[in-house]
């Protein structure tokens, strides 16, 4: 009975070991062929996908070890992009206002006939 249990656990460990080696080999192949190689066939697609997943896993690992919150990693990126976009739009509006102000000043100067400085 004990032998059987040990044998069962050994088989289970072996399956994991083989799967792990298979996964590592797939990641390696996926990295070698790169994303562009994914279109050459179903096997290459699976390898490429495995490499992409592995990359994401490494990013998550780094975020976790640096004390970050898993969920906030991608959300943080989205937020930063949205923030930049809003900053740009505000800058754009300021640019529009600046040129309108310039035109307004020019009209005021013409009306007053002063032609003075800024």
């Amino acid at each position: 009975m004990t032998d059987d249990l040990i044998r069962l656990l050994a088989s289970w460990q072996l399956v994991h070991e083989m799967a792990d080696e298979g996964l590592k080999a797939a990641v390696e192949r996926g990295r070698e062929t790169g994303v562009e190689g994914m279109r050459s066939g179903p096997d290459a697609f699976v390898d490429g996908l495995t490499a992409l997943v592995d990359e994401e896993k490494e990013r998550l690992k780094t975020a976790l070890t640096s004390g970050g919150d898993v969920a906030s990693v991608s959300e943080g990126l989205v937020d930063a992009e949205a923030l930049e976009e809003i900053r740009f739009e505000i800058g754009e509006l300021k640019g529009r206002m600046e040129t309108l102000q310039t035109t307004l000043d020019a009209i005021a100067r013409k009306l007053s006939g002063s032609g003075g400085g800024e």
Partner: protein
Amino acid sequence: MPSRSREIASVFARRWGRASVDSGLGLRGGTRRREAFARETRLAFEELGPAFIKLGQMMSVRPDVFSSELVFELSALQDSVAPAPFEAIREVIEDEFARPVDELFDDLDPVPVASASVAQVHRARLRADSPVAWGPALAAGTVVAVKVLKPGVRAAITGDLELSRRLARRLAIVRPREGWTLAAFIEEFERSLGRELDMREEGRTADRFAFDFRDDEQVRVPTVAWGRTTRRVLTMEYLEGWRLSELDEARRAGVDAYGLAEHGATAFMRQVLVHGRYHADLHPANLFVTPDDRIAYLDFGIVGIVTPDERRHIAHVLAALVFRDPDRALRASSELGVEVPPEQRDALARDLGALMDRTLADERDVRHFGKGFLSLLGDYGVEIPVGYGLLVKSLVTVEGVARALYPGIDIIETSRPFVTRILVEQELTMSRLLERGPAAVRAALGELLA
């Protein structure tokens, strides 16, 4: 007949008469005849001045309406016109700001660095700091390019537009395509010209382009000095570099021509597939190479827009070009509005496959493919949507520019990794997986159980 009408009529009569002679009084083949007329039409437009040059530029981005020969010939319109006198330019600047030029700029060079049909550019230095839309303000002393609308241009164009409208009414019968009228085209031209005659529009587009490429060290867009910009004056950072016609000098200075050509092609794909906005008027005068190995984009007059859905289908069309797969190209094109009648589909796919084999097999020639594809759709009577035609034409132009930088470049091959990555990213979204997952599982089970 007013004198301007007589002048226009006489220029076209002379030019088209020459085209008739060159094409053997119409006896030569269709393509030769169309090429002769296209060439003389371009020369007539150049002769007739700003309104016609702008009209020609607008026609050059409408392969959905005009023949591919005319469209590609008009892309070569020379928009280089004698400059207006400096005094007149100075008056425009002073009128826009109601201030003497010396209070706005230092060292405003009376000799323009460029002069086109509607505007000319003078080099100067900012006299005071100027706010910008993105990034640090431009400091006093910064060298700038001051682009000024030529005096009298608006009036000249308005006059020609009025004549064109009258002509359009008389030529209401001319309809190169179903549902298209000359009068509607003139109206559209008027609207687009209105935008082009407002320098602030160009400044905004440049800002957006600069923002889209903010993380790309190799792409350079001049920053707009909004404190010195009005409807008739656009002040931008002055960028030093070589035009595509001066590349020998650039190569001698050690510029990496291949790297820039490759990056330029990928940057175009990024504009189309990532940002959905692309520079649709690239030509040698609109971009140059900087001494620090960057591509500088100028003049954002014509911008193409694509929606997120269209981007996905465009990526599939590009993938179809890479793999020379006519069925896939037509399938993705139909999602972009290219409706091929079912009874013609097989024949068109066969002809398209033959065209791909001729032009995209060994040494890829996107120019001949693009022209051939648009002609093929025309031959089959397939209507080409505006955006689709503009995109095909822009792709051809990008190849022309990349080849001017590095003659041996294959833009399809160099942009392949980028396009593939975009395709994978697009297809691996949760919504796409949920949409296509069940079908994929069914197919996989079918394969396993077979």
